[in-house]
């Protein structure tokens, strides 16, 4: 009986699996369609937008995309990290300053900066679980702490990036339509996130974010999982900081708007702020959408201030449309 049942199930599996993937990834497919429409619209108002545009887009979104991946991980585990922008600033200025001072040791500096990111995230995580102060408060406080340190390391924008690091993210890969920055992003995320996602740690991240009591009772260590989530976020913040230095060629001690943009991208990418749901691909697409919206508004010669207003309105509109669609599907 069982064997028969299993073979029947086996036969139906590929089609069913594809269908269930489409169903579970509806949000991502929707985002991709929206992004495609944005590209079409871009070509419509700016017919010269092509390889150069794509290259520019890829390199400009790289830091924020990495930050959004970091934010997504901690949000999936039920937390939030508001210090991500200043962690980026701190790691970026450390990289820029020491690469300028020790050009020969640039590889060591890169590795040290990644370790620094892990350390910053670890500190965030340990503070969150030991003080029992809400995540949002702890990381808001650390936003100030890390940006203070960033100013200590480098009071004014300066330093430099090693040429090999700059070249790592510039230009094309195999084909002129495939920017290196995009490949780097996919490789980094693939190498770090995918194995974790498939491990017990990945399960624990989703479990703690989805229902921490049930996770606790299932034998998951909530404290360890949370600390590891923040540590991973720190690592991605450092990667974001490094690419920021690499793409601008200098270090800037004042954090950019990355913290809130990373939260916006996470929400846009279909990660539930309540935790437990979503992935990292959605937020990456979210970042590209946010960036492309800006590009379009620049092409349209919109007042930059109004462009920000429009960006906010579109964010609400997209998320609302998604929720409405999900609601309708549930009713059916």
């Amino acid at each position: 009986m069982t064997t028969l049942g299993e073979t029947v199930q086996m036969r139906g599996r590929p089609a069913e699996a594809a269908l269930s993937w489409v169903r579970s990834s509806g949000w991502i497919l929707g985002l991709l369609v929206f992004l495609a429409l944005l590209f079409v619209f871009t070509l419509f108002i700016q017919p010269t937008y092509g390889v150069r545009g794509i290259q520019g887009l890829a390199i400009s979104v790289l830091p924020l995309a990495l930050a959004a991946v970091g934010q997504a991980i901690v949000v999936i585990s039920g937390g939030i990290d508001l210090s991500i922008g200043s962690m980026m600033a701190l790691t970026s200025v450390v990289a820029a300053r020491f690469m300028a001072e020790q050009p020969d040791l640039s590889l060591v500096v890169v590795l040290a900066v990644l370790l620094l990111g892990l350390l910053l995230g670890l500190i965030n995580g340990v503070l969150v679980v030991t003080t029992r102060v809400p995540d949002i408060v702890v990381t808001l406080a650390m936003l100030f702490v890390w940006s203070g340190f960033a100013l200590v390391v480098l009071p004014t924008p300066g330093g430099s990036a090693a040429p090999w690091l700059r070249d790592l993210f510039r230009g094309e890969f195999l084909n002129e339509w495939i920017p290196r920055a995009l490949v780097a992003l996919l490789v980094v995320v693939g190498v770090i996130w995918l194995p974790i996602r498939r491990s017990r740690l990945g399960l624990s991240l989703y479990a703690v974010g989805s229902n921490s009591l049930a996770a606790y009772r299932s034998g998951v260590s909530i404290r360890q999982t949370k600390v590891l989530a923040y540590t991973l976020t720190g690592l991605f913040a450092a990667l974001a900081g490094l690419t920021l230095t690499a793409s601008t060629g200098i270090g800037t001690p004042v954090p950019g708007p990355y913290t809130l943009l990373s939260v916006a991208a996470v929400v846009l990418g279909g990660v539930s702020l309540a935790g437990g749901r979503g992935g990292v691909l959605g937020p990456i697409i979210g970042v590209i959408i946010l960036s492309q919206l800006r590009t379009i508004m620049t092409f349209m010669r919109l007042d930059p201030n109004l462009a920000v207003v429009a960006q906010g309105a579109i964010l609400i509109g997209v998320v609302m449309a998604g929720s409405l669609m999900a609601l309708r599907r549930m009713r059916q």
Partner: protein
Amino acid sequence: MTVTSTDLLLEASGIAKTYGAVVALKNASLAVRPGEVHALMGANGAGKSTMVKILTGAVRPDRGTISIRGVERAVHSPHEARRGGLVSVYQEPALIPDLDIRSNLRLTETPLEPFRHWARELGLEELDLSNMARDLPLASLRVIDLARALAIEPDVLMLDEMTAALPANLTERVLTVIGDQRGGDRCVIFISHRMTEISSVCDRATVLREGETVGVVDVTTPGSAQRIVELMLGEIVQDLPSHGGQPAVSAGRPADVQPRLAVSSLAAGAKLHDVSFELYPGEVLGVVALEGQGQDELFEVLAGSRKPSGGAIQVDGRTASFGHPADAIRAGVVYVAADRAEALLMQRSVRENIALPFRTRLAQWGLIDLGDERPRVSEAIERLQIDTRAQAEVRRLSGGNQQKVTIARWVAKGVHTMLCFDPTRGIDIRTKHQIYLLLRDLAEAGAAILLYTSELNEIQIACDRAIVIFNGRVVAEVNAATADEPALLRAAYNLGADAEMPTQLAAE
């Protein structure tokens, strides 16, 4: 008959725990032999839940030792308890809603084949492991949680109120499986408020009272149930007289009395199809139904939190349409839920929780009239005998006291029509009796009360008459005085005239 400590599978002794000024456990002990199903009993506030938390590692005891198979263990988390051979199953399944069943099994490192075996034993024949936990019905999740625990073959399996809200047919299967665990090398600690379950499945029972172990009773001897109750309460309780003594209200009701609540052909969602009944002032009307027969939807509609798809509701003769619970409350129809967390502001005080209904009209600007509020709240606390030692935050009260608070808020406001949905779920016997008595008192004072309960013996104790709902329709009306448990169960399964026994309620 003497048992040396090495013969014991689990031994906890001298356990003490205080929370600030509140002593939860003074000197509790528990000794479980291999091959035994052992009940842990205790009234509200006896320290039972603290004991469970200590055994599972959620809370550290101030004093005392726990050993499993003669080896002393310091258990600091459910994870460590698990590794030490103690696995727990709770009333709320510990499954992650956003993971599929396969991932949930991986999370606890559960072997697949034994899991499937136990799921089948428990009546879950076909189970697609790629289902998200959140998409499965609660009854299935409870079964999955238990099968998952059984598959690990723990030395000590602890079932904490696991059967409290299980439909009757599933409870039976669960009890059979637990009974089969007897005589082996492992043991089960069974916690339940239902004496019939205890006596059908357990060998011995350890009774806690006021933080101390006051006795261990051999359940297999006659009269043990009474002995356990005596130990729990510390005083001899006489059985509550069934309410059947007085004539059913419907018989003596004058013809011109208007029903407080008249429901006709009510339908909602996929489960509630056609329910009609009348609820009169001065009576407690019972609702009898197996899990998922539409009673949830009925109460949601009556409480104003769900719109009906058909039918009509009349309150005091006027047609009512509730768009919001506030409309129902304004019409005098108030709701007591089984799940206290749905009703209470857990972080606020007992007083604020009771006074909440006075304050809900935002249109009433200005300061709250404490002069009016205080005496009413105090009276309600007094009347329900709420233990106010931890009154600053409701979440620190025991479950029974929390439920009293949800009832007290309506008592303080003055009850016209009260809807009680399984109000005694997971509550100890003493508090249950207090709640029954209160419902009777309220009815005698002229209130109309609709009571759904998953424990059929409550019908006879608390109700005047009862309607039986099956598959979204009223299939019978019974006089509570003559309705004993077997009769009600038969009615709930709609056995008799035309229907046959439903076979797979759980798997649906």
